[in-house]
């Protein structure tokens, strides 16, 4: 109905208006989710460490993220004297823009996607791999040693884990025979178990279990979350690339990190946990499933943060290059042979 109204109001410009509506419809709820994810994280960490967490602002502390946001908006943005002022401002904008742009190809339910493009997975990889420029540019433009260290660490870490992430996705692409993200979800609705009402066993996480683990951990490393948060490493290099930033410029990095967290969680749910599909045959598919799965993966991220100590830098590199990359290559071969054998389950 809304579609027809837009069509009649704007005529030939309707697709553009429709896309703009889609963008607003994604970004506003996303920013709200980001705000409350910070609240949820502090609460979860609090509970896990037998504390209460934020509980002063509003009922149960629910207005805490709003208060934090207001505080950051009213703070002065300080530009260091010898900073490269143009790039200094572009840095956080790059980080935030790429974190939002990737959402264009995310399907929320069957057909509910802003850009249903055939090369959706590639677009996603392109946008997430560009997020690193925000970190590097801001680290360099701040003209500060700690910021620069953060940028260096981030560049090495993100490039390494992108490879593992991409290789893990190749297995997913092999079994779904498509780069279209909606098609990947549809592919998971087929199979022996899905036909017998136990769809959860037909999703990619089971046959591609090692890749699921690799993707999840690489996603954690890509978003610079604990235990891979050496980029910020507050005990060694204060806050890494954002050490010189204040006010909204700092807040943009913060928002980008949490938006990326939600993105990685959503993509994990889509690639490996069946997206919007229902786990059992007698319940209908739909967006609540995707939201629930994404929430679960985000919760895993918070849980990891409360559980594991930070990795040492050389251990991070070893895990990425010497464990994940060979594992992905071997599993790619396994999946290839599996698909060519009579036991192929992805017909």
């Amino acid at each position: 109905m809304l579609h027809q109204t837009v069509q009649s109001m704007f005529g030939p410009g309707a697709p553009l208006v429709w896309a703009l509506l889609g963008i607003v419809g994604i970004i506003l709820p996303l920013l709200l989710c980001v705000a409350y994810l910070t609240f949820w994280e502090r609460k979860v960490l609090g509970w896990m460490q037998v504390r209460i967490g934020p509980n002063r602002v509003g009922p149960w502390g629910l207005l805490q993220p709003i208060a934090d946001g207001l505080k950051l908006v009213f703070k002065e943005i300080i530009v260091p004297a010898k900073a490269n002022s143009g790039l200094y401002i572009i840095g956080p904008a790059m980080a935030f823009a790429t974190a939002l742009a990737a959402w264009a190809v995310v399907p929320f339910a069957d057909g509910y996607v802003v850009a249903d493009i055939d090369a959706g997975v590639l677009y996603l990889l392109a946008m997430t791999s560009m997020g690193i420029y925000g970190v590097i540019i801001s680290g360099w433009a701040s003209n500060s040693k700690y910021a620069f260290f953060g940028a260096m660490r981030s560049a090495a870490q993100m490039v390494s884990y992108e490879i593992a992430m991409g290789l893990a996705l190749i297995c997913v692409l092999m079994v779904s025979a498509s780069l279209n993200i909606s098609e990947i979800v549809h592919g998971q609705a087929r199979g022996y178990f899905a036909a017998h009402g136990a769809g959860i066993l037909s999703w990619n996480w089971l046959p591609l279990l090692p890749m699921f683990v690799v993707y999840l951990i690489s996603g954690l490393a890509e978003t610079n979350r604990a235990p891979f948060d050496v980029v910020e490493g507050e005990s060694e290099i204060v806050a890494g690339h954002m050490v010189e930033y204040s006010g909204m410029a700092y807040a943009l990095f913060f928002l980008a990190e949490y938006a990326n967290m939600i993105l990685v969680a959503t993509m994990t749910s889509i690639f490996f946990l069946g997206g919007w599909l229902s786990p059992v045959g007698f319940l209908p598919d739909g967006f609540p499933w995707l939201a629930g799965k994404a929430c679960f993966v985000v919760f895993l991220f918070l849980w990891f943060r409360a559980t594991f100590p930070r990795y040492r830098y050389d251990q991070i590199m070893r895990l990425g290059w010497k464990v994940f990359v060979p594992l992905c290559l071997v599993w790619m071969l396994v999946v290839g042979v599996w698909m060519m054998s009579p036991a192929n389950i992805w017909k």
Partner: protein
Amino acid sequence: MEPKTAIFYVLSAILVAASLRVITAKNPVHAVLFLVLGFFSAGGLWLTLQAEFLAIVLVVVYVGAVMVLFLFVVMMLHIDVERLREGFWSNLPVAIGVGLLMVFEMALVLTGRYFGADALPEPAAAAAGYSNTKEIGRVLFSDYVYPFELASVVLLVAIVAAVALTKRPGKDKKEQNVRKQTAVRSDERLRIVAMPSEKE
């Protein structure tokens, strides 16, 4: 003007301006970032040609990986811009000669009979359901499978060579053996000695 033409001109203008700044920028980091912008605009231009696979791969490979490492290196170099400019005037005649030669070569190619607007008509609009990605994959793994495999072998050799060149065993090279590190027990590192307290 058609929207597609307008997009073409906007992207081309950005591409040309960014490319110019790559060679005129004083700061090498700025030059690299303008190169990134150039790649990105070129990707946009390819998108208007319905080559979405190539366009996005250009961004993934060059913008997302190659230029990041490039920036990584350039940021750590201490480049003295004044010293770079020293030989400008003495090298200018050679540069002009090479530039003119390149313009001449490009003119030869572009005005030849294989490259004009009539020799290369606009590609027919793709049918619905046509997937550029699938088509490239099909051609790459059927008609061009040997050149493709050969290219990958060459790349593999290059990787092995790069690793072999940089990772040479030396006398003063220290390495960590993670297996030994994880197998270590506390009594190998820490010895608790029972000792009576001493008087002054």
